[in-house]
């Protein structure tokens, strides 16, 4: 598909054959306008978010990013707690989800017997289809108490010398619960992209390695992983973007602590997305532009993350296309 196909290009070229048929012009015009609309939409999103956050931008400037605390009475707002919360929760989720996702992808491409391959793939994709608000509901009512009563005390008593695993939470909500919930949400994303990458590894390379007498694991480590490395990085970046942008499920389970940064994972925290979801309907005065400012941070971050990931994905796809020839 990556080669230049002359006939394919010719049948799609605008106005090939007789020029200027009114119907052709209308269809191309309308369809082109729709495509342009999609581009304009991106610009409009950026414009509206910047416009909404302008009062906060002029009041707080870049100091907003490093200020701790969210005091609406004295108009002293800062994003540091939320940025910290987003960083900890999403990196934590990535740390848990990546090895699991690699394992799932390996299972689905190299190990699973044919008869369960299709159904397990479908099940993992179904996990991605569960709405975040339902995962959040499950997180508050089912997962939270289990983590509070069993997992957190166990982690505290075995790894308590690390400050991350401090005193267990009393409510079952907190940064740790958010990490687990986010792990569940990004796991299917990373594993489905990784699975496709692993499927793209040329069979000859794998057979050559196996023919030299390697075990299956040595073949995977020596052939599959190096071949898919860039793509796996892109999948992780996309998962990170998704985790940082998730608002509802995190809002439900993170415990909404706005005024302090704690290294204890079992304490409450907050993220920019969750803060907007929890606060926006009650906000007034300078708090509204401040919440827009949080959205602006999210927007800038997600634009950066997605562009980088897409560029990597495209480069990997092109390389695999060349290798397949």
């Amino acid at each position, binding site marked *: 598909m990556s080669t230049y196909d002359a006939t394919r290009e010719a049948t799609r070229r605008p106005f090939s054959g007789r020029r200027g048929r009114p119907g052709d012009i209308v269809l191309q015009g309308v369809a082109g306008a729709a495509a342009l609309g999609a581009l304009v939409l991106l610009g*409009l999103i950026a414009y509206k978010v910047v416009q909404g956050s302008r009062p906060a931008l002029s009041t707080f400037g870049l100091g907003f990013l490093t200020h701790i605390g969210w005091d609406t009475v004295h108009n002293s707002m800062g994003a540091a707690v939320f940025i910290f919360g987003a960083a900890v929760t999403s990196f934590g989720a990535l740390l848990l989800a990546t090895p699991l996702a690699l394992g799932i992808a390996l299972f689905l491409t190299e190990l699973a017997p044919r008869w369960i391959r299709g159904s397990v793939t479908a099940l993992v994709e179904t996990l991605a289809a569960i709405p975040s608000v339902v995962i959040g509901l499950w997180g508050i009512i089912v997962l939270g108490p289990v983590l509070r009563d069993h997992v957190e005390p166990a982690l505290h008593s075995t790894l308590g010398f690390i400050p991350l695993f401090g005193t267990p939470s009393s409510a079952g909500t907190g940064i740790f619960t958010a990490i687990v919930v986010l792990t569940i949400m990004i796991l299917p994303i990373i594993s489905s992209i990784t699975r496709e990458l692993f499927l793209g590894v040329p069979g000859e390379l794998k057979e050559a390695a196996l023919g030299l007498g390697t075990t299956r694991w040595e073949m995977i480590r020596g052939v599959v992983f190096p071949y898919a490395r860039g793509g796996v990085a892109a999948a992780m970046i996309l998962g990170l973007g998704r985790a940082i942008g998730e608002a509802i499920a995190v809002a439900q389970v993170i415990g909404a602590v706005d005024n302090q940064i704690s290294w204890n994972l079992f304490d409450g925290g907050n993220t920019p997305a969750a803060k907007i979801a929890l606060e926006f309907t009650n906000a007034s005065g300078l708090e509204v532009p401040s919440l827009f400012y949080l959205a602006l941070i999210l927007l800038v971050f997600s634009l950066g993350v997605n562009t980088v990931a897409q560029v990597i994905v495209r480069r990997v796809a092109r390389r695999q296309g060349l290798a397949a020839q």
Partner: protein
Amino acid sequence: MSAVGVTTLRRPNDRLLRRRAANRSMELLAWLAAAIAVGILGVVVWSVARRGGSELSWNLLTKPQNQAAAYLPNIQEGLANAFAGSLVIVGLATLLAVPVGILVAIYVNEFAPRAVRNGVGLALDVLNGIPAIVIGIFVYGLLVVGRGPSGFAGSFALAVLMLPLVARSTIEVLALVPDSLREASLGLGVPRWRTTLGIVLPQTIGGVLTGTVLAVARVAGETAPLLLCSSIVGTAIGWNPHHALFSVPLAIFELSESPSPADHARAWAAALVLLLFILVASLSARWLATRSRRKITRAGR
């Protein structure tokens, strides 16, 4: 001879055993990872089914919320206002996003030069990656400021989320339509626009439908934009999108934040209905996808 043979043979054997052990344990870990993912899905679905199933009733679907219920426990109370609102908001969003998505796909696949094609593709992917809450705050700034929340604003936000999904899946099926069909039609003197709309597009109906159903399943559970654009405290069943409308995901979100077990029970029931809808939609989309793909490839022969 025999002594030498034993030592030279045994040493590689030990190493082979170690390599095999590493291989076995890694394979086991991969099996375990898959089992964990399937297990999580099972636990979540089972929790929702068990806790929501007992609460599911005809009243839940047909009776609206009732604020008096907190004081008069015999009043029958449901979430009909949420279901009605979701129906209107998601329906309108679909009507908005699908035609535009198809047009974008037609432009990208049938008209655009290569560079533009890649550019629009990248824009769609980036749009798809913007967090839903940011889309929500964008639509708040665009449509809600000065006018108040409305079902329309919620629909528009969901349509923005659906657009890249519909366009992407349509681009994919359009690319599957064999060029022989386009060439045959153009060769008979059929104008380009009729070739596109009358010959190429009908081949893709199955694929477009699949993409649409998946997009609907994705946004039906979307909470964040509706929280900002169409949240409401009222409890009457409303169908008019000029006013703010309640919705199922919002109901789950708000009921889950409540301390009352009765509210939790209704949240689980609403979650069960939503989940059933989404699972049925994704399964039928999967079935449609395999069917339509087979049909398109057959048409080329």
